[in-house]
């Protein structure tokens, strides 16, 4: 009889113990859910914490990443050994082609300088660049961003464009003291106003987390074909104009997609470009009036 009475007391005593044991987990789940809702509605709220934490962790990430990157590179090299001869041949052909381009560039540079001298326009040499090593390449299926080991201390600030292998990679969305986060152009939220270099028609490039970019907002009479290069248009002031972004090609369904010039899937180093503020670029010399002979049509530049 006594035993029968004691059993329920024992069970009820165990229940609060379980509650006490799992209450912190329940509370943390509720807190995580609340944080998720708040950070989804106001993404900028936690940005300061994110930037400071990344700054703090940057040395450790760099230390962990270096041996892993070296090992990965070694494995890639070993697996590519069989293709070395073909790769060598391809590089030789590309080198010949680039030499021809180099000659053309030298000629154009000289011609450009001559024209600038004629207009009494100074050469724009204020552009600065910072090269940073990629220490985090993460994101997940739809979010694509990297963390670069270069920050405010090196002159990096929010909004600057990042390039690799001569092609646009993305832009700095937050910059800490010694590290910065770059949102890649392949991110689902990334939008890049572009020009089709051949036709000078404007369009919009957007990412979908994959290897290629989608082209939208093309004019109805747009003429685009495989091999057309796309460069930033500078519209909206997000990116400076003229930065190479990608090359158009048709996908397996016949739709036009854009292949980024930079290999966004294997980023090791990126170049963060500071084109300088307009005040940097203006010198008293550049604000001089045009020579009388060039006033009129040429003055429209």
């Amino acid at each position, binding site marked *: 009889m006594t035993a029968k009475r004691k059993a329920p007391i024992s069970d009820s005593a165990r229940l609060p113990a379980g509650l006490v044991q*799992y209450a*912190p*987990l*329940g509370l*943390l*789940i509720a*807190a*995580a*859910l*609340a*944080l*998720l*809702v*708040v*950070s*989804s509605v106001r*993404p900028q709220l*936690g940005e300061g*914490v*994110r930037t400071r*934490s*990344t700054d703090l*962790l940057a040395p*450790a*990430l760099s230390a*962990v*990443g270096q041996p*892993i*990157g070296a090992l*990965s*590179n070694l494995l*890639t090299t070993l697996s590519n050994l069989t293709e070395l001869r073909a790769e060598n041949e391809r590089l030789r052909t590309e080198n010949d082609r680039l030499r021809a381009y180099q000659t053309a560039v030298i000629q154009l540079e000289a011609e450009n300088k001559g024209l600038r001298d004629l207009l009494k326009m100074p050469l724009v040499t204020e552009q600065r660049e910072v090269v940073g090593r*990629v*220490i*985090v*390449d*993460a*994101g*997940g*299926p*739809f*979010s*694509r*961003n*990297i*963390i670069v080991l270069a920050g405010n201390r090196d002159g990096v600030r929010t909004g600057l464009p990042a390039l690799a292998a001569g092609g646009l990679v993305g832009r700095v969305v937050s910059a800490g003291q010694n590290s910065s*986060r770059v*949102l890649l152009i392949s991110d*689902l*939220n990334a939008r890049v106003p572009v020009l089709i270099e051949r036709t000078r028609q404007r369009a919009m490039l957007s990412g979908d*987390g*994959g*290897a290629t970019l989608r082209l939208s907002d093309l004019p109805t009479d747009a003429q685009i074909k495989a091999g057309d290069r796309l460069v930033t248009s500078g519209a909206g002031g997000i990116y400076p104009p003229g930065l190479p972004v990608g090359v158009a090609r048709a996908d397996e369904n016949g739709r036009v997609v854009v292949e980024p010039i930079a*290999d966004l*899937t*294997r*980023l*090791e180093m990126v170049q963060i470009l500071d084109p300088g503020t307009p005040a940097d670029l203006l010198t008293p010399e550049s604000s001089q009036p045009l020579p009388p002979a060039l006033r009129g049509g040429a003055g429209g530049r």
Partner: protein
Amino acid sequence: MGENEHWHKVSDSARNVAPFLLVLLLTFISVVPLQVPGYSGIAPPLALLAIFYWGVYRPELLPAPAVALLGALQDILTGAPLGQYMLIYLLVQASLISQRQLFLAHAFFILWWGYALIALLAAIVLWLIAAAVLQTLPALTPFLLQACMGIALFPLVAWLCHRLSRLLADDV
């Protein structure tokens, strides 16, 4: 005597933080660049595998606040909305409260199967979060691929955790 006690305390502390440090290291490894084309888009959160392991075998060594901290760290490093991985990791830990006895009583294959099930459910939750944040339905395939990568790597991470667990037990 006093010195021995001191070293015993240091050893105890090291044992308590070792699982956390291992998961932290796995978090770092899962986000550093591997130079493998397309890998970063489907790189599995390696930390989740270890959190699952410790949640089954030694939950006392990785308590909920530590799991929450590791989730926040994953959010910070990957640029995910804050709270996303924190929630996923904690939900995985919560799911183990009722299931860990089952996993403990069976062979490794059942544990692997259990992880596969939980990883796929976590992928669907991640996909739903992405849909809510982006206000559009993204493709489910990359999320499932990410989960499959984790499932494939589970034996390796479980072996690592097992080795550490044995090391800590020998140290007692």
